[in-house]
């Protein structure tokens, strides 16, 4: 799994690329893998306000719908209009063509809560451990 150095990461598995006061936001490689085939994306509109830790978009796999949470507060200045037509781009290129929105950050302090690539990699490892806590006792089979 890939976590580019230049990005910052949220606990809800969004990534942020900071360019001045603009944050480009998408979901991480780990998130897209966990979701599986993405078949539908619902994005906010330009001018809408997003609030840190509140849902701003929804992505749907064939199986389920998931909220995407804003890693920073601010106003949406651009949305990736190609995604609704080709939502699978998020699976194929989560950090590139799969970006979701650009936000003008209202409070730069929001960035303090985000993780570096290294911190996020550790965070994901821990989450995977918690999820697969019974992975080691493969020898035990339940047959009744």
């Amino acid at each position, binding site marked *: 799994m890939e976590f580019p150095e230049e990005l910052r990461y949220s606990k809800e598995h969004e990534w942020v690329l900071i360019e001045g006061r603009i944050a480009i936001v998408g979901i991480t490689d780990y998130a897209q893998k966990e979701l599986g085939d993405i078949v539908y994306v619902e994005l906010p509109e330009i001018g809408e306000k997003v609030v840190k830790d509140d849902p701003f978009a929804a992505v749907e796999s064939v199986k*389920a719908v998931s909220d995407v*949470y804003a890693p920073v507060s601010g106003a949406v200045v651009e949305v990736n209009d190609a995604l609704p037509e080709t939502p699978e781009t998020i699976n194929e290129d989560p950090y590139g063509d799969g970006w979701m929105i650009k936000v003008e950050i209202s409070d730069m302090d929001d960035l303090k809560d985000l993780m570096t690539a290294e911190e996020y990699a550790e965070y994901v490892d821990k989450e995977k451990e918690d999820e697969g806590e019974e*992975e080691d006792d493969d020898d*035990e089979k339940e047959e009744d």
Partner: protein
Amino acid sequence: MIAESNPARASTSPPAPRLRRTPLYGAHRRLGAKMVGFAGWDMPVQYRGVIEEHLAVRSRAGLFDVSHMGEVEVSGPGALDLCQELTANDVSRTEVGQAQYNVLLNEHGGIVDDIVVYRLAETYFLICVNAANTDKDFRWIRGRAGKEAEVRDTSSRYVQLALQGPLAEKILQPLTPLKLETMKPFRFSRAEVSSISCLISRTGYTGEDGFELYCDPAEGERLWNLLLDAGSAFGLLPIGLGARDTLRLERALPLYGHELDDDTTPLEAGLEWVTKFSKGAFLGREVLVRQKREGVKRKLVGLELIEPGIARGEYPIFSRQSLPIGRVTSGTKSPTLGRSIALGYVSVEEAAEGNLVAVEIRGRKAAAKIVSLPFYHR
């Protein structure tokens, strides 16, 4: 993110009871499956991806571990009468070697479970039941059995695999002396598959041709590997529960807990064809006779979304006049058709094909059309 509204994943808090494993658990892990809790079992939800797996079953073949399904056996001189009393379909019409889709009913005509009844011998029936309902069904059937019928939960004696898809017969035939070509749908036979003793039936839950194979759990992994190997040249893939769900939904096959439950009758669920009033007395018959005479108030229908979005279970459905008329039971984006499809119950006045309705998706109403079922026909 990853806070899915998926019941199979919602079991993280409080600590859920330990999930059960099928004998193929290790095989799934080695294939890199993503595992999820389903009806108390730790099952593969996908190996390579739901869409890829789904399309493999439609165009080639797929292999499913469905050992979580339960088996209840009913035998003895009163076995047929017991089956007749507790179900809607006419079990007396089956011959030995024939399987029948059926529903277990309660006294209100509600569906306890949807089942497949295999007639192993004149007075010996194997009932394949849903994993989530195994205990409930076993208790229900045993509780109504007299001295003339013996009822046993034999779920732990079987591994059940499903080999499904247009190439299923080509893959299985070289491994068994049984002449598959002459085996009709809903027929079964005991036969060896490369020296493993199996019950092979021409049944499934995908809308494709295919087989379900029951064998001794000790042989389960060998059978799984044999079939995977035999199918590799044909593009056979292992298939998880994710694609099992989208495949059955395209074919409009009901899933218990979604389209069917204890408060839903077969007449409402589009299962009148399963309900044989002519067979005589059975549990819930009076309720169903009355319902048939007076007409049902709500009905299971197919929906296709006209506006963007995916309708999920429990989303409300509205009429064009914005009146609440029902609820979605299952929905997805159909991998085969590329359209957003759903099943749901609506009041019967709104159930006509072509009728325009709306599904509320996260506070927004998306237009949808009532369409004929199934969505997919092979």
